[in-house]
Every structure is written in structure tokens, then in C-alpha cells.
């Protein structure tokens, strides 16, 4: 996934879409005050500049789907692993809740079900039937909407054709009004994302840890230290 920080307005539509798509529980104000919320996707805001002349960088942060995910080897029951799609998946049914993975995720992108969360009426009628509700005591995190990936794959297989590039869109990508997010198949060299993946203005979070995230950010042009805009550099990349 590619996230263009130049375009993101910080509107948080992606956050809401994620919550609706993935049956993310609403934990309430009391829990929010003590860091008990569950947010697979959240907007990290960085403020810079002075009192009157400031700028805000909004950065949507989610599970980085690390290629060398530190969260995986520490799970004693193999409840989290990299599947054949290259996604770091979380198997809720297998999770016993040691929470070791959450400590070992340098991005703090794993969330624990501290309680059996309930949806206030009438919100339970809009739960997504394709996504399981998690019980208390298991870990959860962004899955890149793997239910959508699976559904698209099934459809493609039943029609006996390869998966088309634009067929799968995670909820956040689909929703973003500014089209700041780009999702695709890196294994396909002709896909848009594969072509954009090596752009020099891309950055990864905590690159020095060697987790090889599969989420990259297009750096802001006005970010401190950003090289001057090369006209045309980001066209069709």
C-alpha cells in the first residue's frame, strides 16, 4: 500500500470506513481515556511551525504488513504468520492472548480485546457478515481487508481468469475522497503500485529496524529535508 502524504487531508474517512468494514468495536469514552481503544487505522498528526504559521502533517498509520514482521516469530501458538499472499495475518481462533506480538510490534499496531465488546443498538445490524467478531482475550490488527482479497480471488477463480489489478480495494482505499491511498499487487510487475514502489520520494516507517514494511509513504514536498520538487516526477508513477 502506498500512502501519499501530500494528498491526505486528514479527514479520517478511512478510519471510519475501516471501523465499519472490520467490525471494530466501539469501546467508549472511559476506555478511550486510558488507551483502551481499538483502531486498526488511525491518523497520526505531526505539527510543525510556529503559533501562526504552522503546518500539520496527517499520516494514516496502520499495520505495516512487515515482510520481516517482528510480531510473528514470538507467537507461541503460530496465531500470526505471513500467508502466501504476503500478508501478516492474525488467526483469532488460534490466539491465546499472550500479547507478546503486541509488545514486539515496533509500530504499536496490534490491539487486544480487553473485554467482550458490545455494539449499541442499532449498530449491531450493520456488522459486516464477512468479518468475524472477536471475542475477549484475542489480538487483532489491520488485515488489509483480507476478506475482500479472498472474495475477489474466489470470484476470479470461479470465472477462470487471473485477478485484475483494480478488483481489490480495502475499505480505506475505496473510501479516501482524496485518493491518497493506493493498493495493489506488488508481485505483478505491471501493476500501478509495483511501478510506483521504487519512487525516490518514498519513505518507510522505522526503516532502520529492518522490518521491511509493505506500506510506504510519499514524503511531503514541504517536509523539512525533502528535496525540491522535480517537475513531473510524480506524474503517472
Amino acid at each position, binding site marked *: 500500500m502506498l500512502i501519499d502524504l501530500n494528498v491526505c487531508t486528514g479527514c479520517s474517512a478511512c478510519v471510519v470506513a475501516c471501523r465499519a468494514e472490520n467490525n471494530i468495536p466501539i469501546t467508549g469514552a472511559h476506555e478511550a481515556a486510558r*488507551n483502551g481503544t481499538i483502531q486498526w487505522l488511525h491518523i497520526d498528526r505531526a505539527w510543525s511551525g510556529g503559533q501562526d504559521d504552522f503546518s500539520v502533517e496527517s499520516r494514516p498509520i496502520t499495520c505495516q504488513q512487515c515482510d520481516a514482521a*517482528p510480531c510473528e*516469530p514470538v507467537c507461541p501458538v503460530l496465531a500470526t504468520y505471513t500467508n502466501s499472499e504476503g500478508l501478516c495475518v492474525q488467526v483469532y481462533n488460534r490466539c491465546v492472548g*499472550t500479547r*507478546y506480538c503486541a509488545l514486539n510490534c515496533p509500530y504499536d499496531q496490534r490491539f487486544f480485546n480487553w473485554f467482550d465488546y458490545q455494539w449499541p443498538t442499532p449498530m449491531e445490524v450493520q456488522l459486516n457478515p464477512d468479518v468475524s467478531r472477536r471475542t475477549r*482475550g484475542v489480538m487483532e490488527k489491520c488485515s488489509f481487508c483480507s476478506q475482500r482479497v479472498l472474495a475477489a480471488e474466489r470470484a476470479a477463480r470461479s470465472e477462470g481468469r487471473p485477478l485484475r489489478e483494480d478488483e481489490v480495494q480495502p475499505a480505506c482505499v475505496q473510501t479516501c475522497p482524496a485518493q491518497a491511498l493506493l493498493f495493489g499487487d506488488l508481485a505483478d510487475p505491471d501493476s500501478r503500485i509495483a511501478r510506483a514502489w521504487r519512487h525516490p520520494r518514498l519513505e518507510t516507517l522505522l526503516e532502520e529496524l529492518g522490518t521491511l514494511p509493505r506500506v510506504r509513504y510519499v514524503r511531503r514536498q514541504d517536509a523539512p529535508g525533502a528535496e525540491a520538487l522535480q517537475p513531473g516526477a510524480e506524474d503517472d508513477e
Partner: protein
Amino acid sequence: MNATSPAAAPISIAPGREAPLLRPMLVTGRAYKHMVILLTGVISWGAFCFIYQGFIGLGLTGLRRPVFWAFFITDFVFWIGISHAGTLISAILRLSSASWRYPVTRAAEAITVFALGIGGVFPIVHLGRPWLFFWLAPYPNARMIWPNFRSPLEWDFFAISTYLTGSALYLFLPMLPDLALARDRSQGWRHRLYRFLAMSWQGTQQQWHRLELAIQLMAAVVIAIAVSVHTIVSWDFSMAIVPSWHSTIFGPYFVAGAIFSGIAALILIMAILRRVYHLEDYLQPKHFNNLAKLLLTMTLLWGYFVFAESITTWYGNLPAEMPAFWSKISGHYAPLFWAMVLCNFVIPFPILAIKRLRTITGMVIASITILIGMWLERFLIVVPGAATQRFAFDNWYGYFPHWTEISISLATLAAMALLYMVFSKLFPIISIWDVVGQAPAPTGEGIAEPGPGGAP
């Protein structure tokens, strides 16, 4: 729990030098019974809290992102540490043929087995879904799912079960001759119990020879296991990429800390036994004195480790590690940190170093402060690393324990006391054959001075 009444004495006290050592097994006072009731109450309350927590969810505890581990893991490391008392100390003393060890070994070995059993419960208590803990065991199942052998928690599982097996054997083997003695002196259900446990021990020359061989072997094996167990426990932290956990020194640091707290626990329990069971003739000041010297060494070693760990962190000044470091030295956790230094070094060091202060009372005080200090040490390893801001993300969260966490921890303390009390009612807490030497001394070396025969 223990249906012994002084009226129908199940073991007849034969006039002999072992009598005062068998005495605690059959004389049960009122205080003992009250204590058992009290402890059972505390344990039941802890069990209730655990079940309650299981129904509500772990949200009941003070844990929240990013502090995913806190009280229970602290307790876990602490108890595993205590378990090093026993086996390690008694095994080292046995291998080095320190003859003053005789009255100390059994008490130490029992601590190991019980502390290990209690410590092993905490990883389960701490699970989000504790009823599925058996998924950590590699058992054949229809879906061919195995545990993840790459996970340090899985290593823990094997390390602890190995250690529990080894230390239980190491407790049991030297007890064989005593069990046979108790078998010969008892009637009723106790006789049947001891007959079963004594495994037809007759005390022949060949049996002694084999027993001695087995004990020596187990002593060597158990030292290796004990060192590896606490190293593996420390690797739960060092293997993670959490700044301030990821430290190469943790293996030896944890082992040293474990032996440190283990000796403190041993001294404390010996002092209580001596008082309650009137074993002044057997647990003499010289035994305490020798243990205190060991404890002094470990105090210094501990101080050295903390210094080495802190100064390298400070000098290295890695941005990721500094928030946790400063929170301990001068920030949110500073009161706990300095209390730990006080409890582990400032108070016990003079008590143990100055001969005039090294009385049994002094040692008990030192041991209690060390036990508190070591618990704090474990807490300060686990929590600040997780709670302070890691890397770039502002997720700071101040952890505060919930009463269920405290109750469950206290309940395990009560469980330790109760297990120990029941054990001392069922088995001689001081190795009779070692101390009294009514059997031929297997190694042929000097036998400790037996105490005067009569009951005090």
C-alpha cells in the same frame, strides 16, 4: 487439608536422635490450623479473582496498550527467581561437599518445587484465554497444528516443565531414606503413603551407592537446567525488540538476581521453620552465617549488574532507550527504582557485611527487603520498557494495577506458605539421614554434629 491430630499419633516417636526432626510431622498446634484456614481463605479469594477476570476479560486489569505485560509477568519472573534458591544452592553445596549444607538442603529444594509450580501458573493467569493454555504443548491433534518453536514463550514452556521435573526428582531422591524411616515408624494412611513413596527402600549398601550416584548426577544436571531456565526467562525480554528489554546482559543478570532472591527466601523460610518447629539445634547460627555470606556476595554481584546495565544504557544514549531509562532514574518510576536500590543494596549490604549486625534477626530483615527489592526489580524491567514512548509513536501510558492483580499475587504468596506448611507436615523438612546419620554415611565424609536427642 491435613488430618493429623495429636491424639492418634500416626508416627510413634521412638526415643532416638531423629525424634525432634519427626516431631513437626505429627504435632499440629492450633496456630497451625488457624493459619491453614487463613491461607486457604486468601487462596480462594485469589482463585475467585482469577475466575472473575476470566469471565470479564483482561480489561479488568490495569493493562492497556502499550503496557501489555505487567503485574503477572513480574510475578512470574519473581517466582521463577525464588525457585533458584533451592535447587541451585543445594546442588552447588552438594557438589562442593560443603558439609554445613545438611540441614539446609531439603528446605531449599522444597522452595524450588513450590515456587516453580506457582511461577508456572502466572503465564496461564496472564493469558487472554487461559482455558486454552494447553495449545502451547506440542500434542498430536487432528489438524496437525504445532506450537511455534521459535517463540521464547514456547522455550519457557519447555524450560519450566523440564526444571519442574528435574527439581521434583532432586527433591525426591535424597528424601528416599527418610521416607523409609517414616514408613517404619508410622501406621494407617501415612504408612501406606510412605510405603508407596519409599519404593521399597531397604538401605542396603548397593541402594546407598546407587542413590548417592543418582543424587550427584541430578545435582549436576539441575544446575545446568536452573541456569538455562532463568536465562530463557530473561530471553522473553531480550529477544524482543522493545528498547530497554533488548539487552545482552539479561541472561546472567537474571540468573544472578534469581539466586539472590532465592537465598533471601531460603533464609527467611529457615528462620520461620527454626522458630515454629523449634529446630534451633539443627538450624544453627553458623548455617545462617554461611548463607548470609553467600547473600552478601550476591548483593554485590547484583549491584554490579545494575550498575553495568545502567551505565552502558546511559553512555550509549540511544534515543529509543532513553525514555525508559530516564523514567526509571528521575521520572515516573524513579520512586520505585530508588526504593529497589535501597531494598536490594543500601539496607542489606551493611547488615550482611558488618559482623555485629549479621544476627538472625538482621538477616531476616535483609532477606525481606531483598525480596521486596527483587520484586520491584522485575517490575521495573517489565513495565517502563513497555510503558514509555517507544520509537516515534507517542503512546505513553501510566500503568496502575487493579485490585484483582494484587489479590491474585497475594494469593500465590499464601499458596507458597500453605504448600510449605503441608509439606512440612507430611515430610521431614530437615534431611534426617544426613543430619542424624543413623544410616551409613554414603560419601564417608564427616557428618554434621547431631543435636542433643531430646525434644526441646
